[in-house]
C-alpha cells in the first residue's frame, strides 16, 4: 500500500506538494528519527506558516520522545531479566546440539525401526525359501523329467513295452505285414 511520494523518495518537489495533508502524511509515514536534517528543516519551515502542520509536527515530536523513553526504560528492565533462558533453555539446547549425531540416528530409528525390522525378517524368510527348501524338490523334478536314467533303461525296459497301447501294437503288426 502506498501513501504517495515521500520526502525520502525524492520523487517530487517540496514546494509542489507542501500542503497540510502531505506534511501530516510524511510525519505518519516514517519515524521522525529517520528524517534527514534537510527534511526536518523543510517541515519546520512549513510548520511555522501552517498552524495545523505545526501542531501535528509538535505531537509527532512528543510521540517520538515518549517512545524513546519507553524503549529506554524497557531496555533497562531487560538488563535485570530472569536468567531462566540463559541457564535452562539455552543449556538444554546446547546439550541437544552437542549430541546431534546420535540424537538424529536414534530419532530416525524410532520412526523407521519397525518398518526396517519387518523388511529384514521378510527378506530372511524369502532367503530360506529360495535356497533351502527348493533344493530337494528340484532334484525330484529333475529325476521325474529325465526318463532315460540308467535305472529306468535297465530295469523298466519291459514296462515300457507293456505300456504300449493296443492301437500301437495293432499298427505295428499290420505295418509289418504290409511291408512284406
Amino acid at each position: 500500500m502506498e501513501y504517495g511520494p515521500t520526502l525520502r523518495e525524492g520523487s517530487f518537489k517540496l514546494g509542489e506538494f507542501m500542503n497540510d495533508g502531505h506534511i501530516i502524511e510524511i510525519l505518519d509515514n516514517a519515524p521522525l528519527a529517520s528524517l534527514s536534517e534537510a527534511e526536518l528543516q523543510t517541515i519546520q519551515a512549513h510548520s511555522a506558516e501552517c498552524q495545523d502542520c505545526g501542531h501535528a509536527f509538535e505531537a509527532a515530536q512528543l510521540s517520538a520522545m515518549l517512545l524513546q523513553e519507553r524503549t529506554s526504560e524497557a531496555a533497562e528492565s531487560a538488563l535485570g531479566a530472569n536468567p531462566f533462558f540463559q541457564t535452562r533453555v539455552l543449556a538444554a539446547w546446547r546439550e541437544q546440539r552437542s549430541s546431534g549425531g546420535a540424537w538424529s540416528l536414534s530419532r530416525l530409528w524410532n520412526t523407521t525401526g519397525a518398518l526396517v525390522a519387518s523388511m529384514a525378517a521378510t527378506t530372511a524368510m524369502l532367503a530360506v525359501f529360495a535356497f533351502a527348501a527348493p533344493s530337494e524338490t528340484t532334484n525330484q523334478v529333475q529325476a521325474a523329467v529325465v526318463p532315460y536314467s540308467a535305472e529306468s533303461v535297465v530295469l523298466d525296459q519291459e514296462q515300457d513295452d507293456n505300456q504300449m497301447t493296443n492301437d500301437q501294437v495293432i499298427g505295428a503288426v499290420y505295418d509289418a505285414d504290409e511291408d512284406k
Partner: protein
Amino acid sequence: MKAFAQMKSFAGRGSMEGWLTRIATNTCLNMLRSASRRPELVTSDLSEDETAWLERVSNTTGARRLNAEQKVIAADLAEKVLEILSPEDRLALMMIDGEGASVNEVAEVTGWSESKVKVRAFRARKRAREALEKLVGRKQ
C-alpha cells in the same frame, strides 16, 4: 517457559534466535489481546505529574532534556498512549520507531508482509500523534 516446553518442536530448522523471537512475539501479542484496551486517551486519564510533564514539554522550544524523574513520567505516559493502540499496531510502532528496526526485520519477526507492517506502523503513528495533539489541546 513456553520455549522450554516446546523445545522438541524446534527440531533444528531455522535459527534458534528467530524461533525464540517468534514465540516471544506471539506470547506477548496474546497477552496484550487479552488485556483490556483503552478506547481513547483523555486528559482525565492522566495523573497530575503526567499532565504537568506534558504541559512543560509542549511549551518548551528547542532541545528537551529530561531528568530521571521526568523520564519515568514519560515512560508511564508512553504506556498510556500505547494502550489506545491494538497490540499489532503497538508492536509495529515500538519496533520501528522505538527500537529502530526496519520494516523487513519486523516482517521477519512477526510473519506479516512488509505492506502490513507499514500499514500498522502508519496507523499507530497517526493514532499516537492525534491522541497527543488532543492531550496538549491542539486538536478538538
